[in-house]
Every structure is written in structure tokens, then in C-alpha cells.
């Protein structure tokens, strides 16, 4: 009984998670609202910094959500909405940093680290002679192999 009550409590509490990002002023056109939601997911909440404005319930995040919707109803393209935000808050407001001169290290560092990792593993394996040419079988091993193969033929 207690378990069921606990489950009901958890379920009731988790409903609150669905409420975030649901504003009163949602757009009536579902396609436009979907576009707006998509853009909001790419925008950082400046108050909480590691949340998108969809996930955040800060007052500023709500204002920015309404602005995204407003720009879309005014006929802005996705890029124009993002430009509107970056012209005020900088590239910082984008959760995904743009691909440009200053961020090139950021984008390529995982690849570089991966390649360095491969090289280190390769070098260590070579040092420990895991990568060597196979030595020929000894006499005993050859006899054993022949035995096994004939056994297999019998089946």
C-alpha cells in the first residue's frame, strides 16, 4: 500500500516537470509553436547558464520565450531569431557555439585528443610486443593441431 502511495506521489511530482516551458501565450499554430520550441532549445538561459530557456523557469527565460514566439509570428526565420538574441546577449546565449576562428580549437580538440589517444595506445602495444609477426607453431603444437583437425573431419 505504501509503495503504491509512494508511486502516486512520485508521479504527481514528476508532472511538474512537464509544466516548465509551457506558457500561457503559446502560439495557436502548432507548426509555428514547434519551430519556436526548437529555437528555444538552442538558447541558453542567462540566469541559470546551463539550462536552455525551455527548461528554465526564470522570469528572464520566460520573457525570452515570449520574444521568440513574437519574432516567429512576425515572420522571422529561425536564423533571424537567433541573430536577434546574439546581437543582444552575444554568442554566449547559444548553447551550441558557432563554428568560427575563435572556436575552432573547441570544435577540433575532441578529435585531436582521440588521435593522441590512439597514438599512445598504438605505441604502448608495440612496446609490449602485442603487435608482432606470428611465430611458427612448435612441433608439439603442430601435432596437436593435426589431431584436432582429423577429429573434426570424423564428425
Amino acid at each position, binding site marked *: 500500500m505504501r509503495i503504491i502511495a509512494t508511486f502516486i506521489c512520485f508521479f504527481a511530482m514528476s508532472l511538474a516537470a512537464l509544466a516548465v516551458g509551457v506558457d500561457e501565450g503559446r502560439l495557436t499554430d502548432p507548426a509555428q509553436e514547434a519551430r519556436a520550441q526548437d529555437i528555444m532549445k538552442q538558447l541558453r538561459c*542567462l*540566469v541559470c*547558464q546551463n539550462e536552455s530557456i525551455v527548461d528554465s523557469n526564470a*522570469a*528572464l527565460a520566460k*520573457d*525570452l520565450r515570449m*520574444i521568440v514566439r513574437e519574432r516567429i509570428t512576425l515572420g522571422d526565420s529561425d536564423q533571424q531569431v537567433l541573430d536577434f538574441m*546574439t*546581437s*543582444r*546577449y*552575444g554568442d*554566449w546565449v547559444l548553447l551550441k557555439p558557432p563554428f568560427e576562428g575563435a572556436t575552432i580549437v573547441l570544435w577540433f580538440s575532441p578529435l585531436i585528443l582521440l588521435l593522441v589517444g590512439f597514438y599512445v595506445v598504438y605505441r604502448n602495444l608495440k612496446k609490449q610486443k602485442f603487435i608482432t609477426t606470428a611465430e611458427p607453431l612448435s612441433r608439439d603444437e603442430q601435432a596437436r593441431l593435426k589431431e584436432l583437425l582429423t577429429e573434426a573431419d570424423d564428425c
Partner: protein
Amino acid sequence: MNKFIPFAIFCAISLALYVGLSLNPSNIPSELINDPVPEFALTEVGSDTASFSSETLATEEDVIIMNFFASWCAPCYVEHPFLMELKNRGYKIYGVAYKDRARNITRFLEEQGNPYTQVGADENGRVGIEFGVYGMPETYIIKNGIIKYKHIGPILEMQFEDEFIPILESAR
């Protein structure tokens, strides 16, 4: 030679982390430095006409201060004596009351003193967004309608003489 490579990598990573981790993540540089102030028109607190606008700032010849504040913002109370001090030193300060009620602003200014030449009421916070404001208080140094500097958070005593005043003077 080979022995030094790991040490060199260690040094490079240490240096990068030392620099990277000593940055303050809440200090987001303003996009608007050296740009003209965004266009806006606000009604002054206790008035109905849009008498405080970007034009007001553009026609100012000397360096001026624009301060976003609110009566509901606790750090603003900490900052307020320094704004009063700036006024006493002869600086012109414009205020924008961010998401606040006229009644509360009036009371705030009566209690704490009024350092502002004009106070615009930004009730829905849209002018704040135009300026890239994301927390209270924020202070801009403006000359000839061009934004020269942005200070995020309250101006504290330790910053006032050593940081804020020199920046203000150099903008002149």
C-alpha cells in the same frame, strides 16, 4: 628529449586550466560595447509621456551612467550609496526601474535618496532585454550615445574607487 614531451603537455594543460578556471563564468561580456544605445522610449516614473528615450542619452555630451535597478532587488540597496556618491561627484545618472511598480519605485527613492536625473519605468522588462540585461543591477557607462562599458552586479565598495571611477574617467 622524449622525456620532456609529457612534462611539456602537463605544463600546457596546467596553464590552460589556470587561465580558464580563473575566469568568472558570470561575467558575460556585453555585445554592445562601442555600439550606440539600443532604441527605446520609456515613460518617466510618475508621468504618462515617453520622455526618457535613447535620444535623451544621445544628446548628452559628457559621459553619463545608466543604471538598471529595482526596488525588489537586494543588491541594489547595497549599491545605492555609491550611486549617491557618484551624483555628489557631479556625474549624471539615468535610472531604469526594471519590472517594478511606480509606487514601489517612488518609495525606494524616497527612502534611499534619488541619484537619478530621470527614471524610466521598464515595467515589462523589454528595454532590459534590448540592452542585454540579465540580472539586477547592471550599470552602463555611455558617452555621446555610445556604450563604453558595462558593469554587471552591484558596484561594491572595493570596486568603486579602484575599478569603477578610473573606467568612468577614462571614458571621458
